[in-house]
């Protein structure tokens, strides 16, 4: 058994913590979500409130856990949605070629010209602030990313002899895409999905910070940051903790994606 790369292990551990906490919040939090204790606002860490309370006396740990869950849910739905559409477009572009391929790839080029986050913010702003629109915006920016990865990988697979054998058998290009191309491009697509998950978490935080993402009373790291910024001198910990959570989640998924690429990409594997 080959030794696993360090980024895979560290990323895996960070992701496990974040996902574990998010999953735990579904069944248990230290305090009920959004339970306020106005008299106990800005409390410091204690046995009751492990990290203290915020400006409304809500338990910080509970808020952070609920935020992790909301963040994961948004990122998961958005990446699955955008990733599926993008992968299918990439497969179609590769299978059909000609003007269809040109059209899909020029569309991808155009959307790549926009900075990712700015584009999501623009979309969410145009369609109005709601959780649904935030998810759609993040999904949308994922479409060209996956279309490119899927097309590039698929083009390689189309030159394999087993694909020619399938053509000799009389298989059509859509059947070949389903039977041979998709299973053989799964690895790079999954790697990309992991990396895009990190981008999606960051995008969700940014949108929520601007009030375009997760809406009250649901909590989100980005919303916690924006609420805490006016209180930075009074209670800096209210901004520091959600900030750390965002860093942990983004770093975790980024490292995990890099690590997965290292072990699945045969070009890199041979060098080691």
């Amino acid at each position, binding site marked *: 058994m080959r030794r696993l790369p360090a980024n895979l292990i560290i990323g895996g551990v960070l992701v496990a913590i974040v996902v574990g906490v998010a999953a735990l919040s579904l069944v248990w939090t230290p305090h009920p979500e959004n339970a306020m204790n106005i008299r106990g606002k800005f409390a410091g860490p204690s046995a009751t409130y492990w990290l203290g309370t915020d400006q409304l006396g809500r338990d910080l740990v509970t808020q952070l856990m609920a935020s992790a869950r909301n963040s994961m849910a948004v990122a998961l739905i958005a990446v699955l949605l955008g990733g599926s559409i993008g992968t299918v477009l990439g497969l179609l572009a590769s299978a059909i070629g000609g003007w269809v391929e040109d059209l899909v790839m020029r569309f991808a080029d155009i959307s790549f010209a926009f900075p990712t986050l700015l584009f999501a913010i623009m979309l969410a702003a145009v369609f109005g602030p709601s959780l649904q629109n935030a998810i759609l915006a993040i999904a949308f920016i994922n479409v060209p990313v996956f279309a490119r990865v899927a097309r590039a990988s698929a083009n390689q697979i189309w030159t*394999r*002899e*087993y694909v*020619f*054998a*399938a*053509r*000799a*058998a*009389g*298989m*059509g290009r859509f*059947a070949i895409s389903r*039977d*041979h191309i998709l*299973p*053989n491009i799964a690895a790079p697509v999954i790697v990309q999905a992991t990396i895009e998950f990190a981008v999606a978490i960051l995008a969700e935080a940014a949108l929520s910070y601007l009030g375009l993402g997760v809406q009250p009373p649901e909590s989100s790291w980005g919303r916690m940051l924006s609420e805490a910024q006016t209180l930075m001198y009074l209670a800096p910990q209210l901004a520091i903790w959600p900030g750390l959570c965002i860093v942990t989640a983004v770093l975790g998924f980024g490292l995990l994606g890099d690590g997965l690429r290292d072990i699945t990409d045969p070009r890199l594997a041979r060098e080691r």
Partner: protein
Amino acid sequence: MTLLSVENVTRRYRLPRKSLLQAGPMLTAVDNASFRLEAGKTLGIVGESGSGKSTLARMVMAFERPDAGRILLDGKDLNALAPADLRALRPRFQIVFQDPYGSLDPRRTAGWSIAEPLRATGDTARAEARVAEALEQVGLRPADAAKYPHEFSGGQRQRIAIARAIVTRPALIVADEAVSALDVSVQAQILNLLMDLQDDLGLALLFISHDLSVVSAICDDVLVLEHGKTVEQGAADQVMAAPRHPYTKSLLTAAGLT
């Protein structure tokens, strides 16, 4: 009736442009090639790499179209057929490739791959029994159908590729360097297998190789290609005994046959 008839086939490719304003030069990969292959016979196409022999194979398999000329199988022009008609004709001609590691999908079992030509034409009645039969015909066990390609050796994989090619009972098999990537002892086994199958099933073989010694051993006729041009064509023993073109002579010398 002639099984496969290749008539004055030419294929050109445009090379990448060298300067901004000029289109790239044209390369004639196959230049006016013609041959006939009768049912049950073997035709060898010989040439070095770059001679156009694989391009010819791809055109015979209708993976690409010739720029000029016709390719007829059972008297039907492959490039004039409607897609559905071409698909219906596919079970009649199959191909075995060079690379036993690249010709099987690593994510599919041997049985799945062998049954693919049956599924493609919707001819799935008794598919399992026919896959088992094909495996036995190539010297493997029916139980091997459940295994994945990485569990087999190179020679065994080539047997699986041959099983996939014969499962539809084709009249023609194109063997594109089908033994070139194998060890010499395994080469002999696979060649014997192909010749046995030819006798049993009445297959015609279009045997494409750079190796004249292999071709001379199994072919009735040969066609020698150099840079896309047919330089010599005729009965195998005649060409071997009295090569007329210097290129054929040099190939014979290279193969250690003179």
